């Protein structure tokens, strides 16, 4: 039988120090809200885990999720963890193509039946199977065929989780998310446009450590990362409380780093870990760079009004509708007064 190296052996071969590895485990435990006593268990589980087989399916997507996960300035522990999984099928990253690629997918499914993970990025078009195909197979057929023997499915990015941009109004392809189609397997949503790489690896770490998927919120997202709003954890929150807001992108308030609520920040209604985990090796996150949160980890975020429209702005419809209501009010008032006068006349005559 072919020897499969453990994740620990692979990390060691890649030059990851014990200190660096334990630091990653401690971070993961902290992010998952686990007690420090669980750090050795996480370390042992990850070190001794055989490379889990992962099949990555890309459907209607922009490859931004893959870019997010693979692009790093220097190799990180998270990156190496990804090297350490057995990524048996990934359109963008694999060398094989056509029949060879499909053969690799089937081989991985047979060899790891019931134990492999399916990672999906991109939405699935239900309007017409021909809208998006791979090797002549429609996205929906490939998804349902692949998840049959999977241990769990992870929907990477907002497209796979909720339909995302392809599913935005008027949704020409009839795009849906993975959870709309896969009902008999555990589905974890890691939304974001793109999602945070650390969140992705932590979901895998939990799976490797405990063999379970993390606790999820009502949208199927790991609570450890999607339990708080961006607003709750935002370093600009004190400015919101003080009533100090940037009015435009280049005013004094923006330069002073004041709250971006008036510029359309969706932080108060967006659940994600951007404000705590941050991006680019913990460098910053969009609000720290001076741009309001778009709410990209929320369902249908493309259709929730303008990105730069403040959250408390109402949607009243057209002025013509309001004018129509005013005209109706005048008509009702005239009718009511006329009816009142007639009644008055009637009683006056009777008297």
């Amino acid at each position, binding site marked *: 039988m072919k020897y499969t190296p453990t994740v620990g052996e692979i990390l060691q071969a890649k030059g990851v120090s014990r200190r660096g590895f334990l630091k990653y485990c401690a971070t993961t435990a902290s992010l998952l809200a686990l007690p420090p006593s669980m750090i050795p268990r996480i370390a042992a589980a990850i070190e001794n885990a055989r490379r889990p087989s992962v099949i990555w399916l890309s459907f209607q997507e922009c490859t931004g999720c893959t870019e997010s996960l693979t692009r790093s300035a220097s190799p990180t522990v998270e990156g190496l963890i990804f090297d350490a999984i057995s990524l048996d099928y990934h359109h963008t990253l694999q060398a094989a193509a056509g029949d060879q690629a499909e053969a690799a997918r089937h081989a991985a499914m047979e060899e790891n039946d019931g134990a492999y993970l399916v990672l999906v990025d991109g939405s699935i078009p239900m309007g017409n199977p021909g809208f998006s195909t791979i090797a002549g197979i429609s996205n929906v057929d490939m998804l349902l065929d692949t998840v049959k023997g999977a241990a769990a499915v992870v929907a990477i990015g907002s497209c796979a989780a909720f339909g995302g941009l392809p599913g935005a109004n008027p949704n020409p392809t009839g795009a849906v998310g993975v959870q709309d189609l896969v009902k008999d397997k555990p589905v974890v949503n890691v939304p974001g446009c793109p999602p945070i790489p650390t969140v992705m690896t932590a979901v895998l770490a939990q799976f490797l450590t405990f063999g379970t998927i993390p606790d999820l919120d009502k949208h199927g997202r790991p609570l450890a990362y999607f339990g708080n*709003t961006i*607003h709750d954890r935002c370093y600009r929150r004190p400015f*919101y*409380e*003080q*009533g100090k*807001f940037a009015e435009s992108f280049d005013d004094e308030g923006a330069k002073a780093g004041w709250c971006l*609520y*008036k510029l359309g920040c969706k932080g*108060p*209604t967006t659940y994600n870990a951007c404000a705590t985990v941050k991006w680019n090796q913990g460098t910053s996150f969009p609000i720290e760079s001076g741009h309001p949160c778009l709410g990209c980890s929320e*369902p249908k975020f493309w259709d*929730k*009004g303008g990105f730069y*429209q*403040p*959250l*408390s*702005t*109402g*949607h*009243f*419809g057209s002025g013509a*509708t*309001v004018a*129509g*209501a*005013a005209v*109706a*009010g*005048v008509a*009702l*008032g*005239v009718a*009511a*007064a*006329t009816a*009142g*006068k007639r009644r*008055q006349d009637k009683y006056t005559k009777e008297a």
Partner: protein
Amino acid sequence: MDLLEFARGPALQFAALVLVAGTIWRIVGIVMLREKPDYSEPRASGGYLAALKVIWTRAFTADAFKKATLYPKIMAYGMHAGLFATVFLFTPHIVFFEGWTGFDWPGLPNSIIFFIGVATVVSGVALLVRRMTSPVLKLISNFDDYFSWFVTMLPLVTGLLIPVRALFRYEDLLAIHILSVCLMLVWLPFGKLGHTFLVFITRGTTGMVFERRGAKT
């Protein structure tokens, strides 16, 4: 469509249309009512100046009633001033009005608005307790009084729950808050909350009639 989208969209649209149509309906209906014939000789012209005078003087209590009405007057003024501040000086509300009218103005810090909001609810409760314990007020109060109080206090209470994240998540609390505002807007033209737009019309009319009859205003 989630609850917040429903609240910000169709529910708010419906409430705005009912508010506009209902308010104009009430005003036009009242203005077009036939005036009672005045058979007495006018003591004065009873013009708009008389109307303005009564609108101003009725804002203050007559000397004879000052002592007896001091407590409800403080509470009522406190509640109305609090309502004004929480509605018009809270920045997210200003942003809401700006999206609607195109105008904006400076707001107060959230902590101050929160304090004002709590004080407003306290004064509202104090007024309700008085209404329910005073024999005279109890006798003349009906469903309209209590329901109008309820729909006024509901947006305040739901709004105060948002920053403390009580019971529900932020977006659900915000949706509930907006829906409570919608309920208030729909009720406003038809119940006693109609005094929002009728108060100056009725006081002005009283002033004009009283002056014509020679009453001291």
